[in-house]
């Protein structure tokens, strides 16, 4: 009996060493669901910190407006918790937008460049800045620092390449 106990203990100990999980995968999994806007609307300085906070139980799953209801559903499913509607304190979901710099107004102060979490703004001191539209996440973090209010958010218009087939509207009608 004791021999068995020793053996099992050894086996468990071995397994613990052999199959050690390197990093808390749950943070990665949560981070994979978050939209990576890095906007900080959740109250954390980025998506990864928010993911860590959720994993540690320090944050609710409903604090991410860009992720929307869809994202909350996915988080709820991943974590096995109840769905909660988006917490309005953290903002409302908005249509996907990109920041656009009005280049005639820009004074080249670089403040927006420092604010951009994904380095999607090109420019140097006293030179006009411009936004790399493909890399802009629409986080709006560049708007507040701009001293001349030359940045505006422009919703991404649907074009032939991004157009989506609509969900069929099927009504049961009296024939």
């Amino acid at each position: 009996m004791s021999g068995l106990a020793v053996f099992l203990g050894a086996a468990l100990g071995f397994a613990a060493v052999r199959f050690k999980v390197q990093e808390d995968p749950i943070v990665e999994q949560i981070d994979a669901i978050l939209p990576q806007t890095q906007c900080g609307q959740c109250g954390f300085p980025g998506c990864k910190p928010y993911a860590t906070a959720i994993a540690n139980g320090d944050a609710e799953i409903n604090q991410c407006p860009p992720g929307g209801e869809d994202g909350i559903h996915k988080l709820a499913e991943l974590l096995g918790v109840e769905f909660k509607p988006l917490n309005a304190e953290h903002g409302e979901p908005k249509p996907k937008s990109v920041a656009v710099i009005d280049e005639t107004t820009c004074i080249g102060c670089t403040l927006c460049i420092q604010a951009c979490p994904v380095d999607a703004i090109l420019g140097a001191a006293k030179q006009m800045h411009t936004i790399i539209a493909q890399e802009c996440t629409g986080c709006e973090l560049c708007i507040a620092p701009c001293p001349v209010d030359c940045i505006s958010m422009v919703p991404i218009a649907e074009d032939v390449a991004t157009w989506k087939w609509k969900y069929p509207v099927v009504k049961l009608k009296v024939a």
Partner: protein
Amino acid sequence: MTRQLYEFNGGVHPEEHKHASTSRPIGIAPLPRILIVSLRQHIGQPAKPIVAVGEQVLKGQMIGQAEGYVSVAVHAPTSGTVTAIAGHAAAHPSGLTDLCITIAPDGADRWIEHSALDYRNMDPSHLRNQLRDLGIAGLGGAVFPSFIKLNPGATQKVPTLVLNGGECEPWITCDDMLMRERAAEILAGAAVMRYMLHSDEVLVGIEDNKPEAIAAMQAAASQCDFPVEVVTVPTLYPGGGAKQLIKTLTGKEVPSGGRSTDVGVATFNVGTAYALHRAVNHGEPLISRIVTVTGNVHRPQNFEVLIGTPLAELVRLTGATRDDTSGYVMGGPMMGFDLISTDVPMVKATNCILVKSLALFPPPPPAMPCIRCTRCAQACPADLQPQELYWFARAKNFGKTQEYHLFDCIECGCCSYVCPSHIPLVQYYRYAKSEIWAKEKDKKAADLARERHEFRQLRIEREQQERAAKLALKASAKLAEASPESPDDAANAAKKAAIQAALERAKEKKEGVTPRNIENLPPEKLQEIAEIEARRAKIRAMAKDAVEK
């Protein structure tokens, strides 16, 4: 012919309605009043405009050049003046606008200088680039750039070349008429394909409802200096689908997500072969194609149409618009899509303009619940279980749709065609597909953002460390200098003073800087600028406060 044929599963027999448009020969459409050339006529990246508004262009002149690998050029269909490069209603199910080059024809129809390609003495990759620059893309519907398909790849050889003359969709007859009237030219194009792909055999698959085309192709094949087998295949929609035709002719299945060349087969529409012949043997870019205009029109007919011809001008060739016309479809009744505007220009993919009336194409009765009768599964040529896909697509359970091989669906419409509950099944699949694509795009964007964000964090950290290290170095240096009177001290002090002075200057300059472009502005603008300046000063003060606190 003794060739063994194979069967694909499923398929349907819709009413053909092909005789309507085969009683007249191919007509040459007159020069339209205006031509609108879309830059997105092929799969892949749209072409990049290389002309300017107001520029004179010649017939066949490249006006949009291929951008990226999967792309081909577009050309001026006639000589004239570029009047606009702007968004225009596109031949697309969305009905959205897309970038087009509008040309006002000068009526002279003057060709740019062009000549046949000496393809046998050309470097293969140079030849392929030429074909890209001549705008050759598949005319069967997918409009995939042909130069990519004409690359034999690592094996240096594609043993079987299939010309697709199946044309299984009801109403459409453009390939049928092309084969009847221009069989020799089609095979001249096939000769080039055969040369480029080093093919051993050339098969022409034609459905048995086109005896005239079969006869014409057989006659042309007997004149050929290489063996061509014209194979009659049973009429069964969608037997003209590339995957289905390959299965019928060779028994092979194109692997899911793969290309037909993976099983040693290259398939081209007969129209593509014709276009290739014009390009290689005459040096002409792809600026026209055969389009069937049929349905609710007085004189259904096939026309050789300049690409860019507006829909309304084309339909007018078949007589006055009938009163009960309820819409226009590009393509056939099984896979086509509604055109929302009559300004939509013909593109390389336009094989047919089907004019609808409620009598010919009555709206479907209201949908009933799915009763899982599996008629759709029996009709599906891809061996899918459409009823399951429908179930998951309707529930927006996209993961499951992919598990049930949604992306093997070719959207042929057989399932919707047979559904006794009249459920728009294909529309559910199109919806699910585009949602999945959009999600994948979002995911890619998110991954990129994450990567860039993490890189930025790393960079900031590194900069901080460097700064800290520098400061530490400076501090220790200062400590070392503090006790003895060093000879460097004076120099140091001078340097510091210089830096200080520079800083002062910079500050002065910064504060004193006045943009030069505000002279000659109206007072309201100046007022606005003053307001902005005031706001800026306030923000600066606030920022300063924050720092000091």
